[in-house]
């Protein structure tokens, strides 16, 4: 046990001390912070700017439509210039305006004519033509002006039209589930995605890490000194647990800083002068939390022991890709099935894939975060996973025992099966 602890300690400390780990661990929360703050920042950027009023309106309607539009836009604090022109002079006025826009005297120009009056179309050209909120604002103003003129033509009082037609409406959304109204339906979907991605990333990253570690031991010829002092199954177990502890450390840092970020998100956003994002800390019961932890640990052990065995089969980093790709294929389906499971968390597909040990470590936590899964399904899934885990460790230990001292060409599947049969 003491020896295995020595291996765990070495694997853990050497990895945690590496620059890569420090960067990834710090960078993770930073990315999360950016991902939370950036949308708010973008949203603040995409409210229509003052620039929308810094235009010139070329009015060929002959009805003063341009002035009305100018008034509507004037609410933003600045009234666009209006140039009344004859329909025949549009081309000339446009080329003048184009030059002015290029000289940056204006942001753009709006052309209104008889077609606008009849409610068909108006034209706009400007530097901000691809800024959706600006264009929407412009369109609203034009539409509003046309509408107001029509109401007046029908005999309605201009003041009344103004008060009747100004309706500011926002559509707020809320999600209903079978469990009733969740306080934040979206929060749980986000949680599901976050959980899935964290597990997936951890398994892939640390699977590769343990694989390279084993190959490094072989290429640097350290393996034999080590296996002469500790049985190879204990060595393998020590490696898997040591690397697992590294992954867990990283997750704890990430999850803790993520929760802190959510908790203090509003004051942070306020300090940065941004509107807060309506996202709350998802409600997770202690039982669900423990299940997440169990799936993380078991999934991690399951896959990393397979990666370790794969690493022991080859003797160069060049061959690493060849043995790790098939293992990656075992993990990728979890991500492909993520959306179907999210859409129908209690469907047959979701039920089946959360029992299969290759997909359950990632998809069961996903399912659990958006719906309540019957306890017996969780129990069955965990039991199957534990059994498969033991099988994987047994298999990996046997492959590792023979493989770690084998040099030369990559063994065939048949040879590996023979190792499994003959080891010990």
């Amino acid at each position, binding site marked *: 046990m*003491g*020896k295995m602890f*020595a*291996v765990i*300690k*070495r694997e853990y*400390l*050497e990895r945690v001390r590496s620059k890569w780990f420090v960067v990834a661990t710090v960078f993770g929360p930073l990315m999360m912070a950016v991902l939370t703050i950036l949308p708010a920042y973008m949203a603040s950027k995409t409210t229509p700017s003052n620039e929308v009023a810094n235009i010139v309106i070329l009015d060929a309607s002959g009805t003063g439509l341009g002035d009305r539009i100018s008034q509507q836009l004037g609410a933003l604090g600045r009234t666009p210039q209006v140039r009344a022109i004859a329909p025949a002079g549009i081309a000339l006025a446009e080329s003048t305006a184009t030059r002015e826009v290029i000289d940056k005297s204006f942001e753009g120009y709006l052309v209104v004519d008889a077609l606008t009056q009849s409610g068909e179309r108006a034209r706009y050209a400007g530097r901000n033509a691809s800024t959706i909120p600006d264009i929407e604002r412009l369109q609203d103003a034009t539409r509003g002006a046309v509408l107001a003129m029509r109401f007046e033509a029908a005999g309605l009082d201009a003041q009344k039209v103004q008060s009747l037609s100004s309706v500011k409406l926002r559509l707020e959304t809320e999600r209903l589930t079978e469990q009733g109204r969740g306080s934040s339906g979206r929060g749980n979907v986000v949680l599901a995605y976050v959980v899935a991605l964290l597990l997936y990333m951890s398994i892939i990253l640390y699977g590769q890490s343990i694989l390279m570690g084993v190959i*490094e*031991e072989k290429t*640097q*010829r*350290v393996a*034999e*000194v*080590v*296996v*002469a*002092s*500790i*049985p190879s199954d204990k060595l393998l177990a020590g490696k898997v647990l040591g690397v697992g502890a590294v992954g867990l450390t990283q997750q704890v840092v990430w999850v803790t800083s993520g929760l802190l970020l959510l908790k203090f998100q509003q004051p942070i956003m306020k300090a940065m002068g941004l509107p807060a994002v309506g996202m709350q800390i998802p409600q997770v019961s202690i039982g669900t939390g423990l299940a997440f932890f169990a799936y993380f640990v078991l999934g991690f052990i399951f896959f990393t022991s397979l990666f370790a065995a794969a690493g022991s089969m080859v003797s160069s980093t060049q061959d690493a890709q060849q043995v790790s790709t098939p293992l990656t294929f075992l993990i990728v389906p979890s991500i492909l099935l993520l959306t179907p499971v999210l859409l129908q968390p209690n469907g047959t597909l979701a039920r089946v894939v959360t029992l299969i040990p290759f997909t359950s470590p990632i998809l069961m936590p996903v399912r659990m975060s958006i719906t309540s899964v019957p306890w017996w399904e969780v129990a069955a899934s965990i039991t199957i996973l534990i059994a498969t885990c033991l099988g994987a460790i047994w298999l990996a230990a046997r492959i590792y025992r023979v493989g770690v*001292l084998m*040099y030369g060409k990559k063994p065939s599947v048949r040879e590996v099966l*023979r190792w499994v049969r003959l080891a*010990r």
Partner: protein
Amino acid sequence: MSTLAVDIRSIVKRYEGHVAVKDLSLQVPKGAVYGLLGPNGAGKTTTIRMLLDIIAPDSGSIAIMGVSNTASGVLDRVGYLPEERGLYKRMQVRRLLHFLAELKGVSKRDASQRIDEWLERLDLKTAAKDWGNSKVDELSRGMQQKVQFIGTLLHDPDVVILDEPFSGLDPINAQALKDTVVDLRRRGKTVLFSTHLMDNAERMCDSVCILARGEKVLDGGVAEVKAAHGGSHIALGLTGASTPAVDAVLADRSLVGRLDDSSRFFEIELAPGADAQLLLRRLIDAGAGIERYERVQPSLHQIFLEKVGASGIETGMSGHG
């Protein structure tokens, strides 16, 4: 308490297509320096790996210091320098040595003290520079070899097993290794090493075992082995280069059974029943300028060639370990 440091009984190891070790028995007394000799592929490394329980024999038993080598804690009394040597390149030397000591069950405090002693003894820690704080890959190859020795001996093992210890060593480290072996023997430790360098074995070993094609060819004390094969060997030294006439005499199978030709120096094994005096007279008649003509004990090298033969070496080359 057993007087044997290593007691191997009838071990067999088969691989698909060939038998690496056939029914091998070996006894190494405590305090001995024991040489395991043989061409490449004779089964030396396989035997050593079985001894260290890295691989299991198909049948037979192995005891170290009187206890089965699969018993827990036994291997903590063994120090092992494998033929394929290496260290974790990116680890700090001191941390690496701590790890190796911990794998052998040495307490942390003992390890710290011994690591410093060893680093000082092998000039890796001087007033100017403490290499213990450097990473392994910052060390020169020679220094890395020293670190590897320290790793092998740090836990003060009773039995030290060295697989081809001289391969890849620079002359200074080779000498340091010889000195270390002498020192270990003086302190009553048992050293077992494999080599195909007969000169080293002859000078350092008390006893040897010659292996070929997975089988024991002979074993025993170096003096006894040589005595058992002595008597019919003659060392011949010529003043100049050999002539065709001299070569013809030496090619006479009725006189010369086996010849190790080094141009001006020959080690001759007389043919059965041949007369040494007759050979000398024939050589003089052939006009050879003789500097030395002496009955000698055969060198281990000679015995090795005689017992294993060229064929044993060649077939051995294709195998591993």
